[in-house]
Structure formats: structure tokens, C-alpha cells
């Protein structure tokens, strides 16, 4: 594995993973959800809001507010502020930016938060105003929202690499099994492969159980130097390596790979580990097909071998390739931008050994990835991070 020229993270830790239990619909605002997450962060770290000197937020439903409005809203006095509108890649991007900021002492404790509310019309409103390319060239064709666009990508990918719906079903079914162990997951009933196959079509080949359920919720974590964590008396996970890429492979006529494929040598090189070393993987699962793409692009198998890979592995918590152990967005719910964070907070719990009912035995090191922003015909943003527990 070639090395990386990037400077390794110097004892940067990620701590206090927080999940505010999701609700299918909420009459509360995004501000409320983000406020609950901030409160939970302070409680988890034994700090007050005054101790937070860096803040990074992601949300689709803040209305006219951005990060700055939220500082006053929550009484935050920070010296580092970011607002990341990268959808499913927001958590990885937040983690990367915050890590370098605390490393340089531009801030000491950065709260990274994503939260969204979900009113009955929130999702449609988000679709309507997603991007200029979408409004000009996608939404008017009935493909508003991700389903139509990802259906086109999925169908091409499945045909190109001989992937069957059953193969994608394995991912969804395993995640549902994981979700049944997560008390906060919105999906509470088992899912069989037969039920997956018999689901109603949404946009061929996307069927009901390929889709996430939009909901309200929030996720958050703190980024700080190890010494800060030690002083607070809390344990954080070590940040070993990260990557981020936008608009990769723009000349591919259709998306069959994401930006990870461009950067994985850098990811593993920086962390000094191999894909095989991972005790679990949390991919960005807006659709099972995107998770399968990540198995390939993140180096767990070769391009085109995703179907074989899922046929040959058990993706449940107790399996040989624990994947999306909280149930992921597919079974826990997609709380807007918090969908970017769900894999990161779950990865943190896994390596910190605090995942409770979804804990993978002896999980010491794992990977979380992000994917976001279908601006026109493909998801543009990708990212990944490798996190390790204290013992590794």
C-alpha cells in the first residue's frame, strides 16, 4: 500500500457521539433538534456551552439561518465556525476541517452537529430547491428527489456488473437485522429477502426497501486534541486517516464509481492500515447500490465484484463483515443532513466500545464513509474516515 504525503493527524480525537432519537415527523424546527444535540454533547463531555469554541453545522431545514445565526441562537461564542452544505458527505468534511483546526489550536473543542426537522412538506420543499441543475434539468422530468436519478445510476450499474436485486437485498436485509438491535431505529419489524423482493416499485429498479425514510433527528460529535480529552476525563476515538473528493470522474458518462476510488490509497496510506484491518464498515447508504459501490471503491473488493462480495459475506453485527451496524439510514431513518453523521457516530461508539446492543465484538478500528449531493446526474461528494479506539 503506497504511503501518503499528507501530514498525519497529530493526536486528534473524536468524542461524545450523540444521537437524538429520530421521529418520522416533527413539529419542532431544525433549530430545536440541533439544540438538543448540543445539549447532549455538553452532557456527554461534562462541559458547558461556554467551553465550545468551534462549531460546525449541517442542515437542510434551517430556513434562512446559517451557522452564524445559530451562534446567537444557542449562546455559542466561538472562534471557529463552519457551515457545511454537502449532504451525505457533511460529516466527513466536518471531521476533516475540525481536526485540522484543533490541531493548529485555532480552536480547542469543536462541536460538529447535523440536524433536520421533517414536517409533512419538508422533504418536497428540499427537493424543489435542491440545486440549479436539478431545477433546470432533472426536477422538470419527474425525477425530483433522489429516487429517479439513482434509479438511472442503479440500473446502469446493475446491468454493467451483473448485479441482481437479490444482491442488493442482502444489504438491506442485513441492515434491518442490525436495526432491530438499535432501540432508536425507526424500523421495528424484521425484513426478509422475500419481502424485499416483493416490495412495490418506486422507480425501477429502486423498490420500497431500497429507499430511506426521511425523518427528523440530529447527530453530533466533538473534535479535540487528545490532551483536551484527557483534561476533561473523556475518551475519544483516534482519527487515523480521512479523504474527501468532489466531482470525481466527471468524464464517466454514468456514475459507476465515486471519488473514493480516486483517493483510497491516500486514506489507507495515511492511516497505515489495510481494508482487511477494519473490524466494521459504515457506508453511506442512501440506497443499497451505493453501499455496494463503496465496498468496491473503498477497496474491500474489486470493481464489479460487489455482488460476489455481498454473497460471500455476512453483513450483520455478528457477521464476518459488520456493516451499518445501527441499521443505517435504510432502517434507522434518514434525518436529513444527520444521515451523513449516522455512520460516524456509530463508528465512534463501536471503537469506543459504547455501542451497547449493536456492539461488534472487539471492534478496535473501523471505517465510516460519506456520499452526497446529486446535483444533476450523479452524487458529487465523497469522503471517508478511519477511526480507532484507544487500545489500537
Amino acid at each position, binding site marked *: 500500500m503506497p504511503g501518503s504525503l499528507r501530514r498525519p493527524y497529530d493526536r486528534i480525537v473524536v468524542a461524545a457521539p450523540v444521537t437524538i432519537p429520530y421521529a418520522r415527523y416533527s413539529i419542532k424546527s431544525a433549530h430545536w433538534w440541533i439544540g438538543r444535540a448540543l445539549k447532549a454533547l455538553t452532557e456527554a463531555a461534562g462541559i458547558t456551552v461556554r467551553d465550545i469554541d468551534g462549531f460546525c453545522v449541517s442542515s437542510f431545514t434551517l430556513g434562512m439561518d446559517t451557522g452564524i445565526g445559530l451562534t446567537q441562537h444557542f449562546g455559542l461564542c466561538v472562534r471557529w465556525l463552519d457551515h457545511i452544505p454537502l449532504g451525505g458527505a457533511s460529516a466527513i468534511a466536518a471531521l476533516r476541517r475540525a481536526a485540522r483546526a484543533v490541531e493548529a489550536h485555532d480552536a480547542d473543542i469543536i462541536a460538529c452537529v447535523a440536524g433536520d426537522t421533517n414536517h409533512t412538506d419538508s422533504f418536497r420543499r428540499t427537493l424543489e430547491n435542491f440545486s*440549479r441543475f436539478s431545477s433546470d*434539468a432533472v426536477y*422538470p422530468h419527474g425525477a*425530483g428527489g433522489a*429516487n429517479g436519478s439513482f434509479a438511472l445510476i442503479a*440500473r446502469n450499474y446493475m446491468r454493467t456488473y451483473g448485479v441482481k436485486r437479490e444482491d442488493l437485498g442482502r444489504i438491506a436485509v442485513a441492515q434491518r437485522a442490525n436495526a432491530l438491535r438499535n432501540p432508536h431505529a425507526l424500523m421495528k419489524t424484521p425484513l426478509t429477502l422475500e419481502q424485499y423482493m416483493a416490495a*412495490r416499485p*418506486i422507480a425501477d429498479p429502486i423498490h420500497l426497501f431500497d429507499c430511506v425514510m426521511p425523518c427528523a433527528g440530529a447527530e453530533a460529535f466533538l473534535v479535540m486534541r487528545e490532551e483536551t480529552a484527557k483534561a476533561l476525563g473523556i475518551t475519544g476515538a483516534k482519527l487515523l486517516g480521512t479523504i474527501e473528493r468532489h466531482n470525481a470522474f466527471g468524464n464517466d458518462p454514468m456514475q459507476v464509481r465515486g471519488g473514493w476510488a480516486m483517493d483510497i490509497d491516500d486514506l489507507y496510506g495515511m492511516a497505515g492500515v489495510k481494508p482487511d484491518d477494519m473490524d466494521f464498515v459504515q457506508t453511506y447508504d442512501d440506497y443499497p447500490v451505493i453501499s455496494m459501490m463503496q465496498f468496491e471503491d473503498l477497496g474491500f473488493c474489486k470493481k464489479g465484484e460487489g455482488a460476489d462480495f455481498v454473497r460471500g459475506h455476512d453483513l450483520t453485527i455478528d457477521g464476518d463483515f459488520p456493516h451499518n451496524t445501527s441499521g443505517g439510514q435504510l432502517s434507522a431513518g434518514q434525518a436529513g443532513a444527520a444521515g451523513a453523521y449516522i455512520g460516524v457516530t456509530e463508528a465512534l461508539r463501536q471503537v469506543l466500545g459504547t455501542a451497547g446492543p449493536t456492539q461488534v465484538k472487539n471492534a478496535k478500528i473501523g471505517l465510516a464513509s460519506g456520499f452526497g449531493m446529486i446535483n444533476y446526474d450523479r452524487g458529487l461528494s465523497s469522503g471517508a474516515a478511519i477511526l480507532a479506539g484507544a487500545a489500537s
Partner: protein
Amino acid sequence: MTEPLVRPRRKNPLARTRLPTLPPQWRSRTSHELTRAAAEGRFALQCCVACGHFTYPARDACPVCLSDELVFKDAPRGGTVLSETTLHIPADVYFRERAPWRIGLVKLDAGPTMVAHLHGDSKEGDTVRMSLQIDKAGQPVAFAQPQTETPHMSDDKQWREMTADPKFRRVLVTNGRTVIGQEVVRAMKEAGASIIFVGIADAWKPFPGEMALRAMDGVTIVPLNTADEKSTFDLAADIGAKVDILVNTSEHIRGGGLLDRHGTSTSVDEIERSYMAFLHLAQAFGPVMRMRGADGVNSAVAWVNILSVYAFANWPQFGQYSAVQAACLSLSQCLRAELRPGGVRVMNVFTGPLDTEWFQTVPPPKLAPRVLATGLVRGLKNGLEDVFVGDVAEEVHQRFAANPKALERELGQ
């Protein structure tokens, strides 16, 4: 194989009329160059002057070289469907009501990929012919269809949403006394219109072509004097809810400019028989047509005006006529905006001098009424908004786009 359309049965008078909904309407200002192309039936894409690459969706800088000299120009229409999907549960009300709805991602011969509505006979892997269409919201969308004709091709459900095909629709031709009106009736008949209402003022007065018109199957003569408000509203009360396509063939052509005419009576006549006639028709028929924009196979679908191309720039030899035509063009834009919530399109057919008695002194080329009527129906079948029929109209259109000042000067010489 496209399922051929079935002639709709008489509507159950107790059934609720489905109200029109529209596909998403917002477009960037840059994208309205596509609107312009779609209105005329052209397939134009942005092309970079500096590096020659076509781009899509519309941008404000070239993604290859960052030049801002992106001009819309006609692009090759060929493409290949890379992937397709059938939307069963779209998020948008308009599409949800019409689901299942097929779309595809098309790799254009010009380079970019384009999300497009798919004709029922075009499948993944097929080569297709691309077009830009004006959808029910009056906005541009991409449409992919087979490169060669397939059986009943124009009956395709999705294609029919993009067009105003007269097949199985009921048409009102507002003035059947003229050769233009009669040629429009003939062309509509050929296009498969189910009923053609033909307005005749002062029916006791005979007119040329009357026998042939009355003998035509499917033609219903109705009393209509569009210059008269009451006559127009009376007819609308009677047949308004059965008019799917209204062709405004009101015409009143008189030569002469401003200074060589004495008094205003001719001018008042011109205004009453063209502008006021249009206004009466719009107020009488517009509201019910707007209500019926989604009323099944024979929904209200289009309003057609026949306008002089000199509406764009005054031709002093027919100076007051040109001015009234300009007023009618302006009013048509107002009507277009007001019919849009119903998904009913306004198509303007622009002509140069016609080969009729009122242009007797004008030298050729002059447009044969039959050619005008054929062009009009072709425009409806293709879902156009601005149709220029004949060499003179096309030339004036191009000269106006190139330099309106030059056109004004030269028309005045």
C-alpha cells in the same frame, strides 16, 4: 409499440373535471435560451466559443475552459439511451397523477448527457432523436423518441403531454368565411379533430366555399361575430366547455399607414375586428379552457393566433395593420401567462403577406392559405409556441433577431 389512442366517449356530465396540475416550473435565466429554442422547435445547446464543447445543463461558464462565451446553437439531435427508469411513485403531483412515467439518461452525440422524457418506443440502449419541448408548465424539457417513425407514434402518452395534437380533439375555428378559416378547417379534419366548430357571422350572407364547408363531415357551423362581445359570450356559454383547441382566424387587413388615411373609422374597424375580437374571445373562452387543461384525451390544450410577422416591426405600407398586430402579439403574451396555470398553450403562427385579396398589390412571395394551415397543424402536433410559416415570415424573424433597428429602417424604405 404505442397503444393507439381511443376516441374518448362523451363525458359523463356528473363526473368531476380533473383540475390541471403543472410540472415544476422554475428555470434559471440562462436556461430560458432553451425555452426560446423549444418554442420554435429547435434543438439548441450551449456551445463554448473558445473551445467548442457543448455543455448541458445550462451554465454561466464553460466547464472545460471557464470561458463565459457560451452561445446556444443548434446541436446534433442524435443520442443513445444509457439508462432508463419508470417512475412509479414520483414526488411531484403532476407526475404522480400520470405515473408510471418513463425517463432516461441520454448520451448526446453532441457530448453531454441529458435527462429526458422517454417516448414509449425508445428503450435503454436505443439511439434516439432528441428535441426540446414546451411542457404543460410552459417550460423547456428534453424529449427522446425513436429516430424513425413507429406505428401510432404521436399517440404516446408522454409525447401527447408535450403537444397539442388535434387528434380526437374539438376545435373552434372562429371565422369560417375566409379562405384561411376554411383551410384551417380542412387541415384540422385531416389531423383527426373529432368536431370542428366553425364560426360564421351573419349566416344569411352567402360566402365563397360555403357549400363545401357545410358538406364536410364533423363540421358544425355556429353563429359567431367576434367583434361583438355578446355574440362571442353567447357562443362560449353554448360550446365553451367543448373547445379543446381554439384557432383565432379573425382577420381584418387594410393597407395604409398613418398620414395618408383620413379619419379613424378604418382604424377603429381594424381594432374592433382584430384586437377587440381577440379580447372578446379570450374573455369568453379563456376561463373555461384554463379549467379543462387536464380533462382527459380531449382536454383543452391550445389557443392559436394567426398573426402578421410585422407585429415585430412595423411595415408602414400596412402600418396601422402592423400596429394592431403588435397589440395582438402583446395580448397573446398576456393570455399565454394567464392560461399557463391550466396547462393550455398559446401558439402564435406568424405569416408574411398571404395570397389573398387584401394583399393583392403586394409582390410575391406570398403565402398560400393552405400552406399556412398545414404549418399551423404541424406546430400543434409538435407542441410549438412560435411558428413562422413561409419565406417572408422566416426572413423577417431572422432579421429581427439579428438587428431590429436595421429591420425597422429597411421596412420603411
